[in-house]
């Protein structure tokens, strides 16, 4: 954690120094005041009183200056820390492989980057401003108190432990109660969220009453939990008061006697009381540290978990330098005895087993199969989005693990099943494929993907802004833009994962025609539900439960492969056109 302070380490030292100064000044003031009363008033020395008074004002002004400096340095340090931490987290997450991403869900990663970092930042800020003060105050106050009157200070010896034990007990129980409350809050918000999303279902099934009573239950549970937590915290104040006021009374009694006996001045007594208060307050503050740190620790753990994640797909450290520069040029793909499963799955069986497949450069290969048969998993292995469990995947006769990842992925273009566009203009989105592409190249790619027409129909054409997630385009339009983006990359291998499901057959035919004409040398792998999309493929690969059950042309498979025939029949696609 300390690493992230970076250049702000000095700030911390400055803050500590400033705090010490502040504490000293603050502690001197009651002392000066005592002198005013005991010496100044007693001797009726007005000049003395004025001098002391000026001293106090000077101290106060000094404290203001210190306070402002501290505010500046602590603000800079805590925000700088947070910014550094955020940057480190973000960069680390960017390096994540797909299976790393799968392990932490997206919302959880967002929370860690946002609220967890904020929590840590706040803790640091509090430390530098308030909590650093407490122990320093405590020590200083004790010193001053004892220097006024050691015997009276014995009260402290009794008061402090009492206070500390009481506070810690309360806070520890409170921590438990607050976690419970937090869980109830999550549950309540979850219920509301679900209702919002599924409101059509609720209304269609006329389940409003049911949902209301579900909500009432959550609501009441939360209320009770919150009351419990709150009641416990309510105990803090009386506890503090009890100890503080008790100590006060004891001091007045014993101190009063001393004043009368002449062993102590009234002014000294008054300032002693001030110090006593300061001590007890500091103790209280100090104990609060525990609860804050507990919370911060939880957040810290979550952040460290991300930072410590081993990235399982990265460039092999000992790549021979020639291989490092290998680029995908031909587009030949080979699977040798590949077995694969997602490491996060609880199910025991493999997602892919014994896959053997060769695809020659320039071929148009289709992959079909039922839901969950392993199609997406298969193609994800090619750009090394996941690594195999056994066997090898070779691109251009080189194991994918021997490529520099950047080079491998430059040569393999992929359109994922769930299409994501980003905020920015259409052009900016398409340029993800190739940052240096010219206007003409962008338009050409869009034309091939049958996206150019509709883009030009927008008033601002390629400069049209897309909202977060690309909201103002239809599903089919989004898919076509994603295809254009991938094409712009001019990859040797192009993978389309169910990328035309929202595009109708006619447009899809045009896209395939464009591929056949303009992307002749590109190896194309297409996963599709519709047989009509894949009839013209050079090869069709049929997957069933993770195994290849057939490879061939449409005609071959229709005659010889039962599963393929089944799929066709279910779509009423026969041999005739």
């Amino acid at each position, binding site marked *: 954690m300390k690493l992230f302070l970076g250049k702000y380490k000095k700030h911390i030292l400055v803050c500590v120094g400033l705090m010490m100064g502040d504490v000293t000044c603050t502690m001197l003031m009651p002392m000066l005041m005592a002198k005013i009363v005991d010496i100044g008033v007693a001797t009726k020395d007005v000049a003395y009183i004025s001098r002391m008074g000026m001293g106090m004002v000077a101290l*106060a002004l000094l404290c203001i200056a210190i306070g*402002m400096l501290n505010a500046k340095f602590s603000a800079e340090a805590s925000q700088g820390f947070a910014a550094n931490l955020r940057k480190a987290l973000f960069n680390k997450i960017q390096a994540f492989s797909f299976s790393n991403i799968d392990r932490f869900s997206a919302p959880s990663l967002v929370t860690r980057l946002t609220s967890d970092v904020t929590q840590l930042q*706040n803790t640091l800020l509090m430390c530098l401003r308030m909590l650093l003060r407490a122990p320093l105050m405590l020590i200083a106050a004790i010193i001053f108190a004892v220097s006024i009157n050691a015997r009276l200070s014995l009260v402290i010896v009794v008061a402090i432990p009492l206070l500390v034990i009481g506070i810690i007990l309360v806070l520890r129980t409170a921590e438990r109660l607050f976690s419970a409350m937090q869980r109830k809050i999550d549950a*309540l918000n979850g219920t509301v969220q679900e209702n919002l999303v599924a409101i*059509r279902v609720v*209304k269609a099934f006329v389940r409003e009453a049911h949902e209301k009573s579900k909500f009432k239950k959550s609501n009441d549970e939360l209320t009770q939990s919150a*009351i419990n937590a709150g009641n416990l915290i309510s105990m803090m104040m009386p506890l503090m008061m009890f100890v503080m006021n008790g100590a006060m009374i004891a001091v007045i009694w014993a101190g*009063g006697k001393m004043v009368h006996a002449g062993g102590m001045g009234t002014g000294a007594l008054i300032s002693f009381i001030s110090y006593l208060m300061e001590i007890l307050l500091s103790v209280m503050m100090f104990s609060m540290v525990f609860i804050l740190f507990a919370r911060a620790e939880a957040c810290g753990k979550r952040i460290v978990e991300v930072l410590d994640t081993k990235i399982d797909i990265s460039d092999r450290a000992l790549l021979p330098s020639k291989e490092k520069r290998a680029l995908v040029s031909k587009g030949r793909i080979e699977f040798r005895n590949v077995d694969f499963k997602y490491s996060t799955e609880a199910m025991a069986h493999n997602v892919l087993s014994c896959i053997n497949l060769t695809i020659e450069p320039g071929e148009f290969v289709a992959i079909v199969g039922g839901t969950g048969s392993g199609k997406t998993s298969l193609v994800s292995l090619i750009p090394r989005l996941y690594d195999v469990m056994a066997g090898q995947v070779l691109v251009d006769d080189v194991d994918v693990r021997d490529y520099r990842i950047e080079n491998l992925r430059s040569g393999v273009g992929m359109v994922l099943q769930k299409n994501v566009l980003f905020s920015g203009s259409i052009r900016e989105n398409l340029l993800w494929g190739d940052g240096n592409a010219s206007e003409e190249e962008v338009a050409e790619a869009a034309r091939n993907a049958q996206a150019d027409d509709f883009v030009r129909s927008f008033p601002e054409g390629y400069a049209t802004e897309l909202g977060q997630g690309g909201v103002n385009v239809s599903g089919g339009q989004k898919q076509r833009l994603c295809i254009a983006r991938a094409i712009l990359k001019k990859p040797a291998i192009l993978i389309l994962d169910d990328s035309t499901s929202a595009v109708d057959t006619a447009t899809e035919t045009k896209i395939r025609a464009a591929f056949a004409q303009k992307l002749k040398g590109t190896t194309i792998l297409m996963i599709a539900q519709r047989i009509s999309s894949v009839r013209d493929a050079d090869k069709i690969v049929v997957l069933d439960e993770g195994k290849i059950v057939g490879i061939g042309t449409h005609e071959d498979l229709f005659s010889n492969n039962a599963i393929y025939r089944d799929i066709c029949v279910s779509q009423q696609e026969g041999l005739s056109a």
Partner: protein
Amino acid sequence: MAENRQATPVPRGPGADPRSYERPKSFTASLSRLLKYLDKSKVLVALVLVLLFLSSASMLAGSYFLKPLINQYIIPGDFAGLAGALLGLGCIYLVGVAASYLQSRLTIRLAQRTTNIIRAELFDKMQALPLKFFDTNTHGELMSRYTNDVDNVQLMLEQSLTQLVSSVLTFGGSIVMMIILSPLLFAFTALVLVLMIFMSSRIGGKSRTYFQKQQALLGQLNGNIEEAIGGLKEVKVFNHEEAMKKDFDKINENFRGAATKANFYAGVIMPIMGNLNNIVYAGTAVFGGMLTIAGRFDIGSLAAFLQYSRQVGMPINQITSQINNILAAVAGAERIFDVMDREPEIDEGDVTLLAVKKNAVGDLVPVEKDDKAKLWTWRVPIDGGKNGETELVPLRGDVRFENVCFSYDGKKTVLKNLSLHALPGQTIAFVGSTGAGKTTITNLLNRFYDVDSGRITYDGIDVRRIRKDDLRHSLGMVLQDTHLFTGSVMENIRYGRLDATDEECVTTARAASASSFIERLPEGYDTVISGDGANLSQGQRQLLAIARDYVASPPVLILDEATSSIDTRTEHLIARGMDALFEGRTAFVIAHRLSTVRRANAIAVLEHGEIIELGSHESLLEKKGRYYELCMGVRELD
């Protein structure tokens, strides 16, 4: 004595809460409406106020006590009297402590109960709102009502109000006491106090500006993060990592700058205010000392005055920050009220569903809802129900659209003079391009929206006459975006009919071809699925939704792209089950996939809100019109 009474147990960083800088639109109106929720607990509120007063008073009294203590007992050395006085002081403290504790507990209870009521009211009112509301407000917005806004209101009720009152009491009380002790000394104190108030508001203002800036940038930062993480896979595929990092760095830096400034101003308040207070203290000591020398003041009074001067500074800051919190809370309450005040779904229907059975004589008599031999009928009041007479119209599923016109926003017409007649037991399929109006038809049938002109009749009854709940009971819907709830698979299936037995649920799961994947789940039917069914594939979710509909077993079915995510082979398998489901029922099917559609009795081709072709699969093919073109893949569907 007790200096930091107002310190809250869990310290919130000074001004670290940026929410507290909004302003409500009509403060008094909203605040009074909010306070009305406390009406039922008037006694409690009064009690809290009394206790607040007691605890503040005890604190002020305790400080005052120093005067007689020192003057009358310590200096003269009257220790018997001192003991008695200390006892008295002890009692005052005890009263204060007890009052403070009780007040805290009562306030928490009050605040939590009130928040509970507000939350429940918000939820209940929201449930009754028409679909249009949900379609026009983002979920994020609505969620923040429950989280952000309710939280702020709760904070206000729990802490801000009481702390404000107690701060005002302390401040006012201290000033009064100071004046009583020495008006002269007070005059000096007042000068510095005014300076303090001035500084508080100036710095507060600066702080507010920077916090607003910070908030805006925070929104940007969070948006960037959400997008980057949501599209992580895309980033990897396109090797876009470096570019993303650069973008992020820029925003991160901007945010850091603004946040640092905001934090600075927030952090500067305490030292300045605290030390100005110390200057008051210093001045008091000096002038008080001089007055004492001049014989116009005594040490006991000086001690007491010093205590008060210590106590008077804190409240100023407290008051400003609590006022901010209250303003923010009321602003949040306004947003909550806005949702509550929306028009609920209008339901003027008087026709209801009734389950009946033919008795021995052949008359129809009402029976229990779960009677297996039941028939559904509509109970239609005659003559507007003046005599309480009703007639019974059997529910057969005869649906007619008569010249229906509709638009969502009043500008773009979605349906134009649509007419259609579905006979009982028929399956009607709708095909057409996106935006042609297919989903709208189902929205109108369900009365999620109402027609602009024309009418829809159900067994001869205008649907606007039928009570919405009853109408929806008679329709079963399976949508493209399946929505499941957190709970077990069994519970989700049972959502279709809450009184379905486990066996019935399993049977329907089998019929929907869902049982095979359910049985392979870790705990089978008891497996808990999360939120929107995230641990299942799209196809599996749709199968569950279909099973859910089976269980509901409604007379009329609406399937809107219900099988789009299921591969054709699986769809083929459930086809048999679906045929059984369609048997004897009227069904409306919307599909992109022609294989789903071909089995319908009649296919309606929609284009721009009008039916341009209507007929069976074969007859339309013969026509060689639009349908033919769609089948042959010549024309665009998108």
